[in-house]
């Protein structure tokens, strides 16, 4: 059997679901950011697969994936800086213990 578009779509759907499970169930803020990175990887697989199988004339999918990688790096940097600032002030990184703004 040839490797087709569907194979990549299933892999990226599973990776996306795994990332979402990580975001929903983890207490540590850094672990939640790891789940976000998994979800972004899943979308990149999707974009590059669609470029290869549906629109191979140009490289719009690759460009989109590269912009997403860039923005994911920015967001990881800022998010992890925020986690460090929160740890410095509140002595915890567990999101269920950060309740300063709860009513």
């Amino acid at each position, binding site marked *: 059997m040839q490797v087709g578009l569907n194979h990549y779509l299933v892999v990226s759907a599973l990776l996306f679901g795994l990332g979402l*499970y990580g975001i929903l169930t983890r207490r540590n803020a850094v672990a939640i950011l790891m789940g976000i990175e998994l979800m972004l990887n899943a979308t990149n697989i999707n974009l590059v697969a669609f470029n290869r199988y549906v629109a191979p004339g140009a490289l719009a999918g690759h*460009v989109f994936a590269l912009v997403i990688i860039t923005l994911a790096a920015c967001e990881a940097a800022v998010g992890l800086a*925020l986690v460090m600032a929160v740890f410095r002030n509140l002595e915890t990184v567990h999101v269920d213990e950060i309740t300063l703004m709860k009513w």
Partner: protein
Amino acid sequence: MGELAVFIVLAVLTLVPAAVVVTTGNLVRAAMSLIPSFLGVTGLFVLLQAEFVAGIQILIYAGAIAVLILFVIMLTQGGTGLSIRQVNEQRLVGLLVAGGLAVALGVMLVRTPWPRSAGTLPASNVAAVGNAFLTDFILAFEISSLVLLASLVGALVIARREQ
């Protein structure tokens, strides 16, 4: 046939460490498991003839983001202790929502009759991506460099010690 075998190996290399990332109680093991997952995604990109994106994926994801995550785990003393509870009380709901979404996405994506085209990608990936960035997608290029600048300054300001 050989391509299918390589694809299955790469898919397992991507998905099994990702499952470890989201379920293990040891935070450092989770961060280290990100790296084989990213390498698996790199392999999938190479299989999709996207060599430039694969190279950037290795450089930025496996090379910078994973290391950054490990550093922040060290600096916030996440530690390797298994006694700290890493999972909140929403495991069942999370499993249902994430599993449902993955199944719905998979079924929906596989069932849609995408207009497959039998063309070939441009010969040189790097040249074509460079040309695309500087002609068709120049706005996205400039804006992403602005975002990089803003996040660089922002991360420095947020993470520094108050004097």
